């Protein structure tokens, strides 16, 4: 999900319209020959082998535990800063940093999807003597030399969501990420419960061959192994390019291909809205749908639940708050304080239409891709989108 947000623009660019898939095919073949693995591929690969501890959200601590007393400056180096997820993330980072009175400066740099600029952003902050840096290394391993140099220069540098490769603890302080297979398991368990252990399920993934969807699929399959009467249609993630328009076409195709679809698991709630519209346009009754939280995903459920008795939804967090964990780790190190938090976080369910305690959250005054699982207070979340 983060990798999707990371690559938001480039994946949309790459997602060529149906007719000209050959262009992108050729282009990707050419790229595959000359480029190292992308951040998306690399991050999931390394994520599993990280030295960071896996833990639950209840093991996270508050900022005041790691503030220390020494006056420091912190910086967020974002590989790309131009979408809703990134803007919420930046606001969360600034919100968290302001909780420590001894953090004198809260700096930010937008890499504009340009690895070269992101590298120079890191180098510039190191040169300025910033003590703690949090980085979203969109370009993956291409960022490693700059990150390693910062680490060697004694800066507390923490990567989050996309891995730069290398070794956490050796090349940089730590790598903070969600536990991807556990997301898959969480979705699959909920779907199995909704279907009473019987039915046909589609798993909507992202870009072709991305390792994030593959890792989630592992979690899904592990759970479904206990339910012989649940069939995962196609047996693999269906590519949607994490794009709502593409998802709409893809799901329309799936509805043609499979006469019976009983539930959907998707690793992008913001893209799933296209799939839901495909169901509505095809006059197909909506089915239980598991994803991660997005404003419009919940709004569509509220609009259509009355007409579709079987339609339920569940989401895990879109985890914009992960940047807070990364910042705490970096600040703790710079202050010489111990931070016991896990690096790889198992995510809880944040919305579940079958559970009155976790009602879906919709606010049509905010953009369709606003994220309510953010830890920003409501007024600050609104302020992010007030231009």
């Amino acid at each position, binding site marked *: 999900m983060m990798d999707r947000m990371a690559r938001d*623009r480039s994946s*949309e*660019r790459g*997602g*060529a*319209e*149906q*007719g*000209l*898939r*050959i*262009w*992108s*095919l050729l282009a990707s073949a050419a790229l595959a020959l000359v480029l190292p693995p992308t951040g998306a591929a690399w991050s999931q690969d390394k994520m599993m082998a990280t030295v960071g501890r896996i833990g639950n959200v209840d093991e996270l601590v508050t900022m005041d535990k790691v503030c220390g007393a020494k006056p420091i400056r912190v910086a967020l180096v974002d590989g790309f*800063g*131009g*979408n*809703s997820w*990134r*803007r919420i993330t930046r606001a969360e980072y600034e919100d968290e940093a302001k909780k420590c009175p001894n953090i004198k400066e809260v700096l930010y740099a937008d890499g504009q999807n340009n690895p070269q600029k992101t590298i120079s952003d890191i180098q510039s902050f190191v040169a300025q003597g910033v003590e703690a840096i949090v980085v979203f290394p969109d370009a993956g391993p291409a960022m490693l030399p700059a990150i390693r140099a910062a680490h060697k220069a004694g800066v507390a540098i923490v990567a989050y969501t996309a891995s730069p490769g290398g070794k956490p603890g050796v090349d940089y302080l730590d790598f903070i990420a969600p536990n991807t297979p556990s997301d898959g398991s969480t979705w699959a368990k909920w779907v199995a419960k909704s279907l009473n252990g019987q039915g046909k399920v589609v798993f909507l993934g992202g870009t*072709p*061959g991305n390792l994030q969807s593959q890792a989630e699929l592992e979690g899904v399959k592990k759970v479904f192994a206990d339910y012989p009467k649940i069939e995962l249609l*196609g047996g*693999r993630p269906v*590519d949607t390019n994490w*794009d*709502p*328009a*593409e998802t*709409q*076409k*893809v799901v*329309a*195709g*799936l*509805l*043609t*291909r*499979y*006469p019976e679809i009983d539930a959907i698991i998707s690793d992008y709630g913001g893209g799933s*809205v*296209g799939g839901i*519209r*495909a169901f509505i*346009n*095809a*006059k*197909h009754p909506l089915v239980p749908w598991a994803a991660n939280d997005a404003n*419009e995903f919940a709004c569509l459920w509220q609009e259509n639940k009355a007409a579709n008795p079987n339609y339920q939804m569940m989401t895990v967090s879109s985890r914009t708050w992960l940047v807070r964990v990364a910042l705490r780790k970096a600040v703790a190190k710079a202050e010489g304080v111990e931070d016991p938090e896990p690096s790889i976080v198992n995510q809880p369910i944040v919305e579940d239409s079958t559970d009155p305690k976790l009602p879906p959250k919709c606010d*049509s005054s905010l*953009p*369709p*891709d*606003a994220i309510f699982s953010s830890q920003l207070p409501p007024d600050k979340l609104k302020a992010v*989108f007030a*231009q």
Partner: protein
Amino acid sequence: MNRVSDFALIDLLQVPRVRHARATVERRRRGCAAAKTQRARQLDDLSSRSQALLLDIENAFGEENILGLGRFSAIWAATAVLFAVSPFIAADSLSHAAIFSMLPFAAILALVAVGQTLVVQQRGLDLSIPGAISLGALIVTKFPNQADALAPAGILLTLFVGGFVGLVNGLTIALFGVAPFVATLGVNALLLGFVQWYSGGSPTGAADSLNQWALSTLGGFPNTVVLTFVLIALAQAVLLWTVAGRRFEAVGANPEAANAAGIRVFRYQVSSYVVAGVCYATAAILLAAFLKTPGVFIGDTYLLPSVAAVVLGGTALTGGVGNVAASAVAALFLTQLGQLVLSIGAPTAVQLLIQSGAIAVGMGLREVNQSFLPRWSRSG
């Protein structure tokens, strides 16, 4: 159809030749032995250029393939074949739901392809499509900001901005002589920058009334499709059966000759970009209406398919000869092909291979028809 309109064009082109003949006769009558005056030389020049233009046009319309189809008919045949085989490839691919999921996307791509066709006919190439569509979809959603009352104003503003973007493109190219792909690429970058700034990276939902309109049907067809059909039929009629339309084609085929024939080349060249800009804006409005929440850079996926539709439709990339209806049918072909491979449920790699193969065959058929096969069939 073509014949009739060609005669109109030929009539038009007769004018300078007749003038030339008269001038010659006049000179001889006066017994003027002096060398041709400047004016007469110009007329001579005009005449020969007009001949060249005629030759261009004749060549273009003279091309026929082995099926006896004109260059624009091949895509109709290919599309018919595609729909005929669809049920055998994916059983339900011609079901009501499948067709009506596909048609709006085809309609939107068709409008974009029509815009690109007009530009290509004027020997141009429009690379500002991603920016123009993204901007159009953004304005039509962000300006009303979900308020139904403001939706009509949002639509008008979007159309105006689309036309204005085209005007900037057209003037840069026709007035300053900048190469079309350079000018439109630059404008595209400007537009994408503006889109990023205006949206802040967050999309906005379309007004409910607009969304409801797009999902409603008229005579059993989605409104988006009906509107697109009407617009394209109109464009086709104007291009084929009006003097302005024929002149438009003449300017594309040979701007110098058209200029010599007294056609205001500049106007036609600029207007092609303006009309194309309005086409993209219309497509963006339909896209926003249909998808409800268009992504911020929704236009990115339309550039290459628009060029593919133009080429598959039979419009010459060298300019002049073109047919917007054929481009629209090519858009339908590409969209149905895409939906068909999705319906097979094959992995993305296989889908890509099937799509590219089908396009290669479609393109190849026409090329083969025009070169190898006619000779071979004639000799046989």
